[in-house]
């Protein structure tokens, strides 16, 4: 069933009795060409691209809980391609271009809203870094505008421009960046993959890998053994736990990142603001809640909840940037588990086990990467070669020294 305005109109006239489930709930078969572990954004996008772009439809996506129950359901919905390094920026710009056509691709309203993002800077060195980053973005085909103080003020007159410690001197503006409805991204990819014949099997936990003579030939699950020519693991947050079942150690630590939503307010923040110096970023959802966050808590955690010192730190950053939010009430806060990699950049690659592929290490930036991650994982599975924009995301780059370290923090995951 294709969704359309006409469909809504006719259903409205007939009591909305014709809508069907958006995806099937199939029993797993005993064999597939490709099994994808994890029905989150990246796993579902990978399955969708395998079917739609590469014509491989004999695919199952296995999910321990319900689809979209991980970080695709608990992020702060920002999409952008304002990276600096050559290994990253072309990939994220590819992703942003895919975001721009996502709703046509999946026939699903993912509420992609290109409302723009501004990264603030506060001194000459910050301006130089922003200009350099903007140039790097434009070299990769992205858009970037260097705003002066008045340019920022025109969009956000309520910021504290004369903050004693971090006065706002300007910002790097990416007009094509914005937000998307995060759950709807998972649902759109799930429905799209299902419509192409992919089996999405929920409540099916992978408990082991079937590895024979160095080759992965399937997975053991709570619903029986499932054979596969190729297995791709897309379980960021739990990557180390799952890959340990295949005997692999990863250059990854799991950390908790908290996010926050205020009570619903009248529209006040038109785009996305990031205040790196204050460890704070914010946007406003279509329901009116201010959606904001800051740094990871900084210690290994699988708890999906953080601690209060980071709550205080984030709220201090918010108050320093825009004192007017002091009267808004915090409605909800939650935590998600991040795959923090050793250089702050992701991994999409084969593993030392033949037939086993790995997608992970997304740190706290996985949501924006979802479309390109799916495309590049599907490309790797279908052709055996990395997609040109993801060729640097190798698992062995730490051994070869070809790390992609945007922050220059070194092998210290909680500093990325």
């Amino acid at each position: 069933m294709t969704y359309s305005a006409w469909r809504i109109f006719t259903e409205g006239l007939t009591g909305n009795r014709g809508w069907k489930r958006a995806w099937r709930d199939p029993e797993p078969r005993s064999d597939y060409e490709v099994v994808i572990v994890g029905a989150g954004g990246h796993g579902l996008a990978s399955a969708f691209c395998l079917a739609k772009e590469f014509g491989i439809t004999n695919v199952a996506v296995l999910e321990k809980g319900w689809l979209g129950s991980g970080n695709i359901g608990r992020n702060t919905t920002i999409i952008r391609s304002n990276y600096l390094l050559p290994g990253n920026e072309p990939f994220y710009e590819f992703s942003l271009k895919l975001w721009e056509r996502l709703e046509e691709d999946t026939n699903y309203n993912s509420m992609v809203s290109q409302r723009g993002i501004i990264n603030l800077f506060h001194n000459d060195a910050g301006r130089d870094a922003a200009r350099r980053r903007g140039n790097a973005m434009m070299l990769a085909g992205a858009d970037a505008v260097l705003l002066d103080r008045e340019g920022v003020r025109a969009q956000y007159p309520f910021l504290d421009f004369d903050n004693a410690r971090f006065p706002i001197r300007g910002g790097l503006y990416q007009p094509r960046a914005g937000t998307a409805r995060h759950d709807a991204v998972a649902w759109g990819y799930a429905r799209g993959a299902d419509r192409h014949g992919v089996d999405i099997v929920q409540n099916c936990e992978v408990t082991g890998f079937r590895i024979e003579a160095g080759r992965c030939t399937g997975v053991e699950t709570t619903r029986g053994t499932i054979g596969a020519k190729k297995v791709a693991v897309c379980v960021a947050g739990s990557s180390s736990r799952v890959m340990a079942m295949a005997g692999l150690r990863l250059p990854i630590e799991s950390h908790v990142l908290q996010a926050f939503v205020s009570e619903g307010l009248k529209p006040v923040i038109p785009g996305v603001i990031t205040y790196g110096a204050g460890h704070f970023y914010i946007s406003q959802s279509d329901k009116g809640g201010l959606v904001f966050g800051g740094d990871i808590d900084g210690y290994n955690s699988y708890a999906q909840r953080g601690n209060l010192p980071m709550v205080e730190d984030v709220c201090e950053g918010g108050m320093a940037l825009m004192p007017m939010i002091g009267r808004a009430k915090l409605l909800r806060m939650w935590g998600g588990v991040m795959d923090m990699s050793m250089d702050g950049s992701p991994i999409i690659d084969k593993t030392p086990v033949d037939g086993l592929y790995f997608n992970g290490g997304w740190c706290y930036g996985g949501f924006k990467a979802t479309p390109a991650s799916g495309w590049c994982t599907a490309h790797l599975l279908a052709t055996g070669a990395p997609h040109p924009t993801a060729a640097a995301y190798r698992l062995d780059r730490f051994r070869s020294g070809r790390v992609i370290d945007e922050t220059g923090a070194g092998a210290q995951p909680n500093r990325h």
Partner: protein
Amino acid sequence: MIIPHPLLGPRDASEFVYLGDASLIDRPAPEAGIDAFHDYVYQRDNPAGAHRELWFHEHGDRSWLVVTRNTLTHEILAVELAKDVARRRGRGR
């Protein structure tokens, strides 16, 4: 989180700086080779459950601690001075 410091008693975790897995105490010998150093610098067990990890009491007595903490619940199970751990493992200090 409250970390029960072996010398100073219960201290708030925000007084500490977190480094990571306590295996970082066991730096390979200089001649151990590239694989040993690659694993030491980059690879982590990253367990869900009990995790031995290094915390530095920066806003306190500046001692390094080995804290055993459950990464699923944040419950702290044991705390030792890192120098005691290192000496037990044959290090001079």
